[in-house]
């Protein structure tokens, strides 16, 4: 089973435990909000440098794609996000973790334009992003899945995946109506991409099945396929493994790693299961009660006392 996760394999050869450990911190606690953090060897990784960094397993991480600066989001009296800043770099798997109600989904909704923060600024590819509707964000190349699965229940798997290509369909209405050569070529090209992703995620067998008939785990995979087929520059996954059994979780983890490896897709994911997060991600943001309480590599975060307290349910003062 272990070797199914390529990176877990690689990471585990330093002998560290991989599940979330309640072991005493092995590295100094890095205060939240500080823009520097330390890697295992304690070397400074300058986050503002544009070149990026090299991960423990030897992948080159690029410049910052998405930067959230001092984001505050309120719902009436509830502050779902309190003055949070962090960034996502090209090619990395960035995790957002934290207990229920911490504001993780809200953060993903801010990135994808579903929620508009009261304060703060979003930078995308170095440019400050004006307030955008979710569909405009999607057209910029940011695809996402939802915590509670938002599929087109009345459509087949293939049709669902094809909607993920909508942002790539250019031909005008008239040309399509008359089914001119260009329209046909475009349709064929889009179909090819869709089929490729369907093969990649191993859902060929259910291509024509209506989504409403699929079990939960497969629905999650179809939703990933629909997001992936848009060839996003940033892929946002809200609890991709929630509600899955162990085997399904392992499959999904493998797919997420493979997507990142093969297509170089930048991924930001929310996950509840600490063990999974630690295996998958390059860097982790930890949220609790709307605040950022940690930011760094999995090892660093695991050793962070605030994070341990949050997960153990230590009373807040």
């Amino acid at each position, binding site marked *: 089973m272990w070797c199914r996760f390529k990176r877990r394999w690689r990471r585990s050869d330093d002998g560290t435990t991989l599940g979330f450990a309640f072991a005493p911190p092995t590295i100094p606690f890095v205060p939240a909000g500080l823009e520097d953090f330390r890697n295992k060897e304690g070397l400074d990784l300058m986050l503002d440098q544009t070149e990026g960094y090299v991960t423990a397993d030897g992948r080159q991480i690029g410049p910052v794609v998405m930067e959230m600066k001092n984001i505050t989001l309120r719902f009436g009296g509830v502050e779902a996000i309190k003055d949070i800043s962090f960034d996502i770099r090209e090619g990395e798997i960035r995790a957002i973790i934290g207990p229920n109600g911490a504001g993780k989904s809200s953060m993903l909704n801010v990135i994808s334009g579903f929620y508009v923060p009261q304060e703060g600024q979003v930078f995308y590819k170095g440019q400050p992003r004006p307030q955008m509707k979710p569909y405009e964000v*999607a*057209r910029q190349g940011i*695809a996402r899945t*939802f915590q509670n699965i938002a599929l087109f229940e009345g*459509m087949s798997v293939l049709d669902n995946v094809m909607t*993920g290509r909508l942002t790539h369909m250019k031909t005008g209405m008239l040309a*399509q109506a008359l089914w001119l050569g260009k329209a046909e070529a475009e349709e064929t090209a889009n179909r090819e991409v869709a089929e490729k992703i369907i093969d990649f995620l191993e859902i060929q067998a259910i291509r024509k099945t209506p989504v409403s008939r699929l079990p939960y785990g497969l629905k999650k995979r179809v939703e990933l396929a629909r997001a992936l087929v*848009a060839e996003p520059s940033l892929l946002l996954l809200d609890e991709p493994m929630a509600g899955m059994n162990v085997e399904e979780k392992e499959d999904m983890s493998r797919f997420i790693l493979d997507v990142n490896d093969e297509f170089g897709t930048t991924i930001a994911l929310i996950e509840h299961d600490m063990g999974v997060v630690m295996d998958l991600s390059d860097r982790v943001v930890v949220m609790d009660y709307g605040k950022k309480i940690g930011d760094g590599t999995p090892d660093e975060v695991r050793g962070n006392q605030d994070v341990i307290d949050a997960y153990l349910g230590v009373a807040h003062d």
Partner: protein
Amino acid sequence: MPDQLIYAMEVSLNGLMAGVMYALVALGFVLIFKASGIFNFAQGVMALFAAMTLVGIQTGQVPFAHLINAVFGTQIHHFGWQIHSIVAIILTVGVMIALAWAVQRFIFQHLVGQEPIILFMATIGLAYLLEGVADLMWNSEIKKLDVCLADGTCLPQGINLAIDEATFNLFGYGFFVDNLDITATIIAIILVAALVAFSQYTKQGRAMRAVADDHQAALSVGVSLNYIWILVWSVAGFVALVAGIMWGAKSGVQFSLSLIALKALPVLMLGGFTSIPGAIVGGLIIGVGEKLFEFFMSSSDLAGALFGFTMNATENWFAYVLALIFLVFRPQGLFGEKIIERV
């Protein structure tokens, strides 16, 4: 074959043709309801408005002539030109698209996320607003609608001789089927086929289906809800125009046209609010059902012999009672999705 059976066949055939008209109006309802959850009470008035606009443009009427004359003391009524049917239809489609935009921009954009009952009330308001605007724009007198092609052939009217002859040879009694009804049926079939092709194979059609299925998911794949809603209202406006032309050519363009919207209601109860095939089958069932029932109940040989009394004008209520019976036994309609209340 007994005479009564032969007459019943003729009646059914004509009922089928009438049903096409109901189906067309119901189709407009279903399109908007699926995409936005709005039950558009104004669909029938849209058909009226479209038909009036078409006649107005064709005959070179000055829009809002009464208003202009009252304000400026002028005496203008006509531009003094006739516009060709095809050109007038294209211009009317333009007007219906503008209407779709205005409806979205000034009404429903402000009501996003409101309760369905509020949206429904808004469409009732829209229906009467549109009726008033239609009156003000083109005045309320009954108008004759002729649609003709470039070579001078117009929408055919009167008895279809081929059917008359064929049935005469078969039964010794020639059926009366109006050519206009046959044309309406053919055009309706083409319209539905085109709509299906549009929704299955074009980008906009896919986006439309996506919005009809799940708003949040549609947004996440880059679909603008606002754009799709304008598109759907435009398509519904186009369907309304087709219905308006058919109805107007048959009985003249008059305000009673908006009442066909009410007949579409029982059609929807039967067919389900979210099903395009349902709208069509429901329309046909109501069309045939009410004509046959009328035929049966008003005949002294049938109802008279059986019950000892006859009834007239059952067409006024038959559709609604049928819908009521359906509501009791199958609330989701023939083709609608089953309504499951999640607890």
